[in-house]
């Protein structure tokens, strides 16, 4: 069961990482990196590292996504 979840998570992670690189819209790319972090945090939980999982979920998928959006908005205005 665990193995199936891990395989699904890693497939989603790889697809989202590639999306983040090749997608033309930057907003979609930022969301995709957030999803990669979220899946990574579930993966850490499955690998018995709940401390790291909490950090990844809060900082990786929460804070860094919103900071990217703030910066994107700022750059758009500067253009």
């Amino acid at each position, binding site marked *: 069961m665990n193995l199936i979840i891990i395989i699904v998570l890693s497939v989603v992670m790889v697809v989202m990482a590639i999306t983040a690189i090749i997608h033309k819209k930057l907003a979609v790319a930022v969301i995709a990196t957030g999803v990669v972090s979220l899946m990574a945090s579930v993966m850490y939980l499955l690998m018995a590292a709940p*401390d790291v999982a909490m950090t990844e979920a809060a900082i990786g998928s929460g804070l860094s996504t919103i900071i990217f959006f703030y910066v994107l908005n700022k750059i758009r205005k500067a253009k």
Partner: protein
Amino acid sequence: MIKNFFIIAILAGLAAIFVTLFWDFGDSETLTPLATHYATNGATEVGAPNLVTSIVVTYRGFDTLGEVTILFLVASIVSFFLKREKVQKEIAPKRETSEIILTAAKLLVPIVMLLGVYVFINGHLTPGGGFQGGAIIATAFVLLLMANPDFEINHKIIATVESVSGIAFVLIGVLGILLAGGFLDNKVLPLGTFGKIFSAGAIPLIYSFVGLKVGSELSNILSNLQGVQKEEM
């Protein structure tokens, strides 16, 4: 052409590094001597059920101080470069916040903050700790700012909380030199009963200060970034 060559060379170098790492990777059946010491004596020496916390706060407490310092530097550099102009220009009309986010923010912000406080106070008992708790508190501020973009976090309160908790963290460390075995030793306070909330010496105190410090620093970065959104370049 040369640029492409460099990119390919760097990628090949990275591939070589990772392939050797992958080949050397294997399940280790035994712990290293240091890990064995932590696993066998950690509970009696530090008195915290969560071994990760006892390593992060006590055995490797100096590293934690360094990490907190790095975060402090980042927060101050961000606020230095995003210095807000006094005169705010007129705000462009913006979309109203959706009803779902408004209601969810009202309901969830207090609960998320409470969860953050729970995580760093229980750092020595359950997974989590100061950094995680502080980050969770900052995500509560994210929700608040998304629901109400004009909300301003009081900078005086944040700066006071941040500096007081930073000084208290170092003071507890220095008290460790005077009263116990060394810098950031947790035996400043009695170890107490194993598994109770007031146990493991100074760890709950240190982690509360780290949590407050990290939470206020991250919220400060957020509020600085939010403050410059209205400015026209």
